[in-house]
């Protein structure tokens, strides 16, 4: 049996017919066609399916698509949709070489982005604590934390000079 649902993803509304047991991950990856939301474990451990639901990082593999109708979903590709220009946080990842295979990168960027809004003064150790739900098997995390730290510095500087939210 399939249910008609409406999902708001990266600012666009999508109408889908899904089985009730269809995960949000499969709906986003397979039905809507977003390659930046990835299956890694299906247990909510690795974080490769991280998306933002009303700006809160969640594991799309542990959420049914039918549960996600009343929230605004953002995926990594939503960060660059408008202009194809990279978000400053993505630029930091690029400059620091904070990706190798790239499979964990969307989750890392999204989780870090939310942390930057909540606490741009987070220490290196606090950044590590917040990223614990996003595993990486390639980089050893050092460069990821470097990238996030640099972005937080930019956010703090923006705030002190009265710049807008990034």
């Amino acid at each position, binding site marked *: 049996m399939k249910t008609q649902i409406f999902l708001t993803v990266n600012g666009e509304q999508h109408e889908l017919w899904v089985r009730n047991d269809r995960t949000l991950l499969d709906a986003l990856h397979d039905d809507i066609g977003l390659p930046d939301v990835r299956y890694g474990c299906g247990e909510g451990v690795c974080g490769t399916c991280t998306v933002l639901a009303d700006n809160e990082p969640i594991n799309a593999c542990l959420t049914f698509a039918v549960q996600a109708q009343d929230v605004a979903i953002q995926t990594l590709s939503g960060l660059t949709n408008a202009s194809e220009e990279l978000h400053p946080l993505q630029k930091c990842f690029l400059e620091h070489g904070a*990706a190798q295979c790239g499979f964990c990168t969307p989750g890392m960027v999204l989780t870090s982005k939310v942390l930057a809004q909540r606490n741009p003064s987070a220490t290196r150790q606090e950044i590590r604590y917040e990223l614990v739900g996003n595993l990486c098997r390639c980089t050893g995390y050092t460069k990821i934390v470097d990238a996030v730290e640099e972005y937080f510095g930019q956010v703090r500087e923006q705030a002190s000079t009265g710049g807008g939210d990034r």
Partner: protein
Amino acid sequence: MTEVLPDAPDVGSLPRTGETYNIVGTSPAHHDFIEKVKGSLLYAADWRLPGMLHAKLVRSQIASGRITRIDTSAALALPGVVAVLTAEDVPYNQIVENASGGLGEVTVSQPVLAADRVRYAGEPIAVVAATEPEIAAEAVDLVEVTYEETPGVFDAESALADDAPLVHEEGNVLVNWNIVRGDVENEMAAADVVVEGEYQSQHVEHAYLEPESGVSWLENDVVTLRISTQVIEHATEIAEILEVPESKVRVIASYMGGGFGGKEDMTVEPYLALVTWHTRKPARMVWTRQESMLASTKRHPFLMRYRTGARQDGTIVAQEVEIIGDAGAYPCLSARVLFAGAALACGPYRVPSVRCTSRAVFTNNVPSSAFRGFGAMQVVFGYESQMDQLASKLGISREEVRDRNYYVKGDTIPSGDEITTAVAVTQTRELALQELGEGPPPTASHKRVGRGFGCGMQPYGRTIWFRDHASAWLTLQTDGSLLIRSGVTDLGAGQAASLCQIASEVLGAPLESISVYIGDTALNPPAGGTFATRQLYMSGNAILRASHDLRDQLTGVAEDLLDAADGELAWQGGKVQAGGRSLTLADLAKECQQRGVNTSNLYTWRAPGGKFDPSTGQGGTFPDYTFGTHAAEVEVDLETGQVEVRRYVASHDVGRQINPVRVEGQIQGGAMQGLGYALMEDCPLDEGQAVSTLFANYLIPSSMDMPDIQVAVVESGEGRGPLGARGIGEPPVGPTAATIASAIEDAIGVRPTQLPITPERILKLLDEAGSAGAQTGEEQA
């Protein structure tokens, strides 16, 4: 022992050292990297084709037994199920791999789908194809397999017993390598001291975040697969399985979400090929994480026994090594892994008399195969522990005992192979220890701080008797842009990007004007798989020579147009320049077209070949090695057994850095994988059954678990890769476990010999040390 084939030009004939480079040695963000941070890079599970089926495997639930019946009727009756294929649907139901090149291992084949017998829990028995993934999963549960269980054998040493159950009728020993040099008995007897040790490592999961996955379809009657693989050359085996000509199978590798050796053997390939071959429809297969944990290949557990004899001053005179590796149920690449273990068993130390035996033994455990470090990394834990033991027995420092024994250029390893490039291991040790320095004291009275280091030596390039080769094909387009085509696969380490940097350096084509097409058996010249830390060495040398040859092809026309003298041309920034005059690559290419000068070059680079004689245990082994030292500071909690790695430094001689950020990334990531191996990771099996297949229970290091990895790079300029580079993919995983064990011994006075070094094992060690340990504690408190 090595020979140079006539068509393999000497590495020394091309610029390597003392030159300045414009692009090599910088760290630009390449095409793949930009797509990765945008999230737009497509991985193997990201393709969807019209009418695509979803394929899923039925796997054995028992570790050892006979299949008495397979009933597929209920599964076939489920609406949406299109096919259920079993052994009888496989034209040639064998995966045959002579992993060592036929040098002495027994020939045992692995069925694509088990027919009458199953040998490990998780072994594929049937493949189901359905219109939706949920239906395929339901159908898998409806396939009824009836088994008759037979006794199995679950550890390698027991499998050697005369009365052990046979995993294969051919016997339980897949291969027995012997490397022998000198007179071990007499030298050992004459030694001033002898130290002995037994060391044990565990099953380890690759845990790449992208599970095994891919899609398949028929195109022009060619079975085409786009998959996550390190080795597109498996097209040959797929053709054998389908009994079609090799030209009727095409394999395309997507950029991988990690591989680490786990995508070196076939994973989804034969099953996707079978489904598409039988149904004539496209198909997708994605292993669940739990399937991957259950049934993907693992790192070999090694049991290592060492006896080392030395003189009073620390000079080693003889070493005996016995290695037993658990191959699991099928050969995969075990013969080669155990060979690397044997060849590298003595590490970066000169040992005049050696006897090393290294056996790959079948059990009814999940198969072991390639994993970053490939046998040469397990033995580091053995030989470095021996060196530290020797130091303490002789009352000399850990540095001094090593200084007495390090190889120098020109020495021979136990197989008789000469080391032909710089051995900068001392330099890496000094750098690592200098960077580590002295840390703060313990944070509590029940904690102890210790520091240690470990040295390692890892080959890069395939064993030389495979006569390895790789090709690259370069084309300068008439608009001045450059196409690179090469059948390399990209694990995420920048395999494709480094080709671009080298070509850009030689031809002066800006990186943004270069497109690189990789990983396609149909459209790329073959480059061999990405494994054995071979890709920069092999395809890097191919692209370097293709670039030089192409430049030579274009030089005559450029000199003519610029009225330049011999050797006057400079190739840079998309232009060719001479004496203040310049010409764009576009104009040069157009003029070449006019004059009928070829603007393409296809180059096949052949690595030096050689022979190894398994009967004497002497001969050629690997092309060259990467040396390094890691150093760590740990804090051990005497109450909980918890080990905290406070600081970690990794230093390697990488010859020359093509892209420093990527080099640093390889070293940091490799060290982190090594730290997981040293302290956390284990796949416990209970009579061949995985105790857990949850990712939640298999702990890989998270961002909280480990410190920043500091990197100290040495560039000796003497590697055998392009421009003097050495491979750096595998080397950084090697020294970690020995480094951590060394630091722990420094902290608590007892040495862990079994991996992983869990809190439980630390507490046990402390208990065994008994009152002595407690006294030491009081003294330090």
